[in-house]
């Protein structure tokens, strides 16, 4: 479904991806994991065509995203859903109107049919009763569920989740985990979950990519990764504070720094 080949992307002088290769298969939940700042969200924006790589290609359903014209890219995006970490709900529209937004923008369906579709999507995420609330009245978890209902409004072929579990209480987190898995299985979606919440992500992922320093460092099923001998993967998956990713930010020798007596006047 998605092929990323030799992807290079940098912001200024800071390299984010340095020859990244990965494949995402249709109908499966693929987790992309790695420490904060490794460019996981950037990868989703590259897949969605919101950013352009300096080198390399990303093919979605056979189409090279960055060679598409504006019209074709927008047509492709109608078949992609994206769940932002913040939900990205339109704050001047109610829950109902937020979910109806893509339907009203892209279809000429009569309002009665739009109403039925919106209620079906809201029912799927358990928020049919919250249809008249405004985004400011929703909790973080509810906002994410509404955003999920909106993301599936146009029945996309794939959906990208950007840190879907961050900042949620255990009950809401469990709800979101279940929803992602259930949606994926029920409507044969292809799901890409970008996250650093190890336990939740591994519980629903079919394939996992661990990325660091702009490259894929480990790949495989959750079971295979659990048995991996790689220090890096062990440190990340078990949440160890020190290892290949050092606890300390690079600095001068500790002893010398203390003995220096503030001569560098900082």
């Amino acid at each position, binding site marked *: 479904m998605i092929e990323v080949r030799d992807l290079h992307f940098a912001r200024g002088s800071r390299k984010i991806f340095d020859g990244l290769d990965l494949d995402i298969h249709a109908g499966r939940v693929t987790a992309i994991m790695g420490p904060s700042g490794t460019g996981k969200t950037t990868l989703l924006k590259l897949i969605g065509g919101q950013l352009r790589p300096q080198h390399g290609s990303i093919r979605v359903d056979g189409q090279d995203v960055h060679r598409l014209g504006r019209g074709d890219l927008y047509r492709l995006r109608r078949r992609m859903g994206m769940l932002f970490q913040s939900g990205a709900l*339109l704050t001047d529209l109610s829950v109902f109107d937020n979910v109806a937004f*893509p339907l009203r923008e892209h279809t000429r369906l009569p309002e009665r049919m739009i109403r039925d579709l919106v209620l079906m999507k809201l029912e799927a995420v358990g928020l049919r009763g919250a249809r008249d609330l405004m985004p400011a009245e929703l909790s973080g978890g509810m906002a994410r569920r509404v955003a999920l209902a909106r993301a599936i409004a146009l029945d996309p072929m794939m959906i990208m989740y950007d840190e879907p579990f961050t900042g949620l209480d255990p009950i809401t987190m469990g709800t979101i985990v279940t929803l992602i898995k259930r949606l994926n299985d029920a409507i044969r979606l292809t799901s890409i979950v970008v996250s650093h919440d190890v336990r939740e992500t591994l519980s629903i992922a079919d394939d996992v990519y661990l990325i660091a320093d702009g490259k894929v460092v480990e790949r495989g099923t959750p079971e295979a990764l659990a048995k991996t001998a790689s220090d890096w993967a062990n440190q990340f998956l078990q949440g160890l504070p020190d290892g290949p990713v050092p606890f300390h930010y690079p600095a001068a020798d500790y002893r010398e720094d203390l003995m220096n007596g503030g001569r560098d006047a900082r």
Partner: protein
Amino acid sequence: MLDSLARLGRWGLGMFERLGRGHLFLLSMLGGLHVLVMRPRLVIREVYAVGVLSLLIIVVSGGFVGMVLGLQGYNTLVGFGAEQSLGTVVSLSLLRELGPVVTALLFAGRAGSALTAEIGLMKSTEQLSGMEMMAVDPMRRVVAPRFLAGFFSMPLLAIIFSAVGVMGGYFVGVGLLGVDAGAFWSQMQDSVDFNEDVMNGVIKSLVFGFVVTWIALFEGYDATPTSEGVSRATTRTVVHSSLAVLGLDFILTGLMFNKF
């Protein structure tokens, strides 16, 4: 010395880069103007937000500016025994200058800052990004309707400002200071030319509407997506658009009335 030169160079490059981005933004915005024909409801909703909701400040300010003009004009004219010309002074001052300029300055403070903050916050809360991913172009759905609303609202607000200002001048001149009502209106009617005065004022406010709304929308769209970034962008909108209005007013006045 070299450091200062390098700083100056960086500042210059940064300024030209922003100017370039601003013009690309304008082109992209103009490309979305067919929204007026395709979805006029979006424009009407924004006319309410930027135009109708600015009415109160425009009416109150117009009234006070007209009243002050009445007082000041009377004090000056009475020295020459020409207080009957108060209607002319008040109406020409309002139609040619104060109406378009003060309206544009108030518009920049009231509606311009609101537009910048709204777009900036939409950007920082990923609403614009979310729209792009839903295959909805924010330039067409969000920016272009607001631009059209600002462009159309400004001349209407300026006309209302001038009309209320004339009423304020009338209230002070005729009602409080004893200027003859017939002289007030007849002198005004005699000296105000529709094309020369009214239309030139309308043209000025169209230009100001274009520039102020463009600056406000660009600043919001280009804002750093943080609370500090949005706050800075809002300040820049008020400062830059006020300066642009005053500078453009000088140029337009020169072209319209002095023909240099």
